[in-house]
């Protein structure tokens, strides 16, 4: 579709205060494969090799979405509204009708006015987000790379004791992104993605069976390391399969690896709810700049720093602009040394809170989760006589309003007198705010998807209900 035609119709339509056009062109290839097909006979699984993929999908596609803004007066008061939609045709008459409907919708919204991003803003388009191995490959070459990755995973899994690969999916996509606005912003950039899901099943007999799934998002194929992926997740599957029942416990708990990445991820964590400009404006957030995230509880251990960083090279959540309001991406420190610092959220709410007027740039899109490392060696976090390590959750969830959580543990370890015993099940129970009152962060760091931070954190007082 012709973006210039859309732009012309937008410029000619009456009642528009401003507009944004987002365009994304996508080329992609995906392969899904179940390498073994299982049936059950006489109470036992039997499998046959399935040499062919389940599905191969190729994707030539484009999406254009526009947002229109309208300002209008009612009873001497000025209001503003916005409406967005995907453009399905660049036929001029169809476009006119669609855009007029959006303007009409925007003109029914009685919101306090706000400004739009203009060309004086700096968009960081040099963030590294493309893999030449993807951008320079045609469909056939992409398929060859996927098959090569799949073979490496299968070969590596062959070497693992008592573990099979039950599912392998790799989705490779190449994006060309464009943002054009009525305020003369014109930004273009390319990005790539290589996302995989690998399911490993450990079987010691059919009573001691467990699955561990790797879900890895990356910008480059080379960031998907078959050896490391198989080693880690085959190991998880074996540990779960051999694990003991859960325990009753209260005391220090170390959350590590994937479980920690889930727990701290700014896409979903409780801090993001309370450090969100819209929630602060609506007075439903605990945020007070410079005040501890633990509320009245004094912080006794390490002080955590959590940052939204959309500029990490090849970070899965690295971004150039917000797909909501077109604001440029920037690094935002949500929590600094245990205290609330900056806010995430849209330009509109930054303006409502008076931040824009003070020269603070809007937060832009959420980036990668960056958590500053601590000073303690990971091994030294285990110093207690008895301590529990949580490695995987079934699904990490927290009540965003009060921070309470009770989440099932998919894989944990009880460490006692130098001996580690894996367990599975039971709930980790606590409160997201209170748990930061006494923590120690490891000095070692790890990247797991969009999480960049300590490999482990020791929380001094959490509960496990077995």
């Amino acid at each position, binding site marked *: 579709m012709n973006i210039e035609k859309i732009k012309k119709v937008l410029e000619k339509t009456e009642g528009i205060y401003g507009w944004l056009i987002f365009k994304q062109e996508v080329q992609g290839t*995906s392969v899904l494969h*179940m390498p073994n*097909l*299982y*049936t*059950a006979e006489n109470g036992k*699984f039997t499998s046959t090799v399935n*040499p*062919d*993929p*389940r599905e*191969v*999908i190729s*994707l030539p*596609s*484009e999406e254009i979405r526009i947002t229109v803004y309208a300002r209008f007066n009612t009873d001497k008061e000025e209001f503003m*509204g916005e*409406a*967005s939609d*995907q453009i*399905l045709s660049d036929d001029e008459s169809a476009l006119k009708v669609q855009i007029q409907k959006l303007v009409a*919708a925007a003109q*029914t*919204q009685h919101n*306090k006015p706000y400004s739009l991003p203009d060309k004086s803003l700096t968009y960081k388009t040099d963030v590294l987000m493309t893999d030449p191995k993807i951008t320079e490959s045609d469909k056939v070459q992409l398929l060859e790379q996927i098959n090569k990755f799949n073979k490496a995973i299968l070969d590596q899994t062959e070497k693992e004791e008592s573990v*099979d690969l*039950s*599912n392998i*999916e790799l989705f490779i996509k190449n994006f060309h992104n464009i943002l054009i606005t009525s305020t003369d912003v014109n930004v273009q950039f390319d990005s790539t993605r290589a996302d995989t*899901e690998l*399911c490993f*099943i450990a079987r010691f007999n059919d009573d001691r*069976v467990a*699955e561990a799934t790797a*879900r890895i998002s990356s910008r480059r194929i080379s960031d998907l390391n078959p050896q490391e992926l198989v080693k880690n997740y085959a190991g998880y599957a074996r540990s779960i399969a051999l694990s003991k029942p859960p325990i009753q416990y209260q005391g220090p708990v170390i959350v590590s690896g994937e479980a920690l990445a889930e727990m701290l991820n700014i896409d979903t964590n409780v801090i993001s709810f309370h450090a969100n400009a*819209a929630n602060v*404006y*609506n*007075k*439903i957030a605990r945020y007070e700049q410079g005040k501890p995230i633990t509320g009245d509880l004094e912080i006794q251990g390490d002080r955590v720093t959590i940052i939204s960083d959309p500029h990490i090279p090849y970070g899965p959540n690295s971004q150039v602009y917000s797909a909501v309001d077109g604001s440029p991406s920037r690094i935002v420190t949500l929590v600094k040394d245990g205290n609330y610092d900056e806010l995430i959220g849209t330009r509109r*709410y930054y303006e*409502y809170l008076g931040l824009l007027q003070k020269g603070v740039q809007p937060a832009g899109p959420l980036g990668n989760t960056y958590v500053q490392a601590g000073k303690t060696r990971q091994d030294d976090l285990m110093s207690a006589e008895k301590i529990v390590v949580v490695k995987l959750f*079934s*699904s990490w*969830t927290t*009540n*965003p309003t*009060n921070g*309470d*959580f*009770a989440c*099932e543990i*998919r894989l944990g370890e009880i460490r006692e007198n130098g001996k580690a015993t894996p367990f*599975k*099940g*039971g*709930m980790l*129970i606590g409160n997201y705010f209170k748990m930061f009152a006494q923590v120690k962060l490891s000095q070692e760091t790890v990247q797991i998807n969009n999480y960049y931070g300590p490999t482990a954190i020791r929380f001094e007082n959490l509960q496990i*209900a*077995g």
Partner: protein
Amino acid sequence: MINNLPVDLQNLRAFLPEIVAAMRPRVPYASALVTQLGGTFMAKSRSEDRINPIQPRRGIRISVWDGATFHSTATSNINDRDYLIRLAKELANSVSIKSKRVPEAGPSLDKHFESTYQIDPYQISSAERKQKLIHIFDYCTQHDKRIVETRAISQFNQEYRLFCNGERLLSSVTTRTNLYVVMIAVEAGKQVMNFKFLTGAGYEHEQVSDDELRALADQTLACLSAERITPGEYRVILTPSITGLLAHESFGHGCELDTMIRGAARAALYIGKRVGSDIVNISDFGGFPNKHGSIFFSDDGVLSTEPVVLVKDGILQPTMMTDLYSYTMMHDRLPGLKLSANGRLEAWDHPIYARMTNTYFEALPREKGGMTKDELIADMGDGVMVDRFTSGMEDPLGWGVQLQALLGHEIKKGKMTSKLYYQVGMTGYVPDVLQSIDGISPDFWIDSTGTCGKGHKEYVRAADGGPYVRCRMKLG
């Protein structure tokens, strides 16, 4: 009669057989699927007055089968017919046939389906919907100063689907109207959230009375003084939405055929065996009229005409939820397997997997021992009634289950007390939980909304439900 299908989709429907015909000379099976969304989203909160079209996400997926693999091309460019025919021919020419195995195309059929309703949601103006949202917002926020925020949302969704595989040409317009009310209350540094949702096909389902709003507001305020439950094992009564969530997470995911044949569901070892007490019956059915998870046909073109019975009288059944690939590969090896309407995708550019639709526990008629909710409470001694699900997670191989609910009501000596628990997590070992079920009510609801992921992706709309169920679970 095609009432609510947009004209361009009507034209495309007529063209789909040509696309499939362009592929068929080269391959034993070919299909085309178009998906598109429509409708309006409206919201009212303290700082947000919003109305916006639902993003169409329109595209086509054309697929061929080579005897072992589906090969698909997915594109958003559905306006250029020459382009689509060229893509179809290129796709068919790119494969070589590997076996004589052919997916079932089903008997010939040319049919269009649409949701039915009492009050036509297409006739309700945006102004009328907005007025209702403003009333909800004003009523709730003026009810008590401690209610600091109310968010009222009205969603009128249309889901369009076109499918053709040479034998059958199907289309549907699935209409959903949803009303959500979310409240946040604050007092002395404590903050709680509560919600209510209403769902159905017609505008009649978006009606909420002031009495219902007041009850929701009062319950939200009661949450301010609610306690956190002491972790441990409890006798619990699950309200219908939680009952359905248990069905969904216990033998829902584990009975999706593609999960089973990749060896990731322990259920495969238990077909024909006892997995629950003899009053446990679990099914999945997309053909219920106007439920949130309902579909007229699957994305493989299979009609939703009969429920898939997963557990009958406590015994796991061989009738699984199937997608066309898994069924084609396995039906000669799995006796009793039927092709069901469960092959679904998130959108046209995603893969098709075996997925749930409306998953539920069957009610227990009174003549078979069914007990009303009040009888279940009176008969249970001490325990907790858990209500209002927020999320769940499956573990079909390990048979763990995690359910999250917003509210727990204390029951003491067979009577509900005024004590409320806020934010209750539930876990257990699936066979233990299902074996512990000793009471089921004779009434039945499927009124949940939401989406279900395969793992953590591929979200499709799905609903859960059933009767009140009494069992034992670990709460925390």
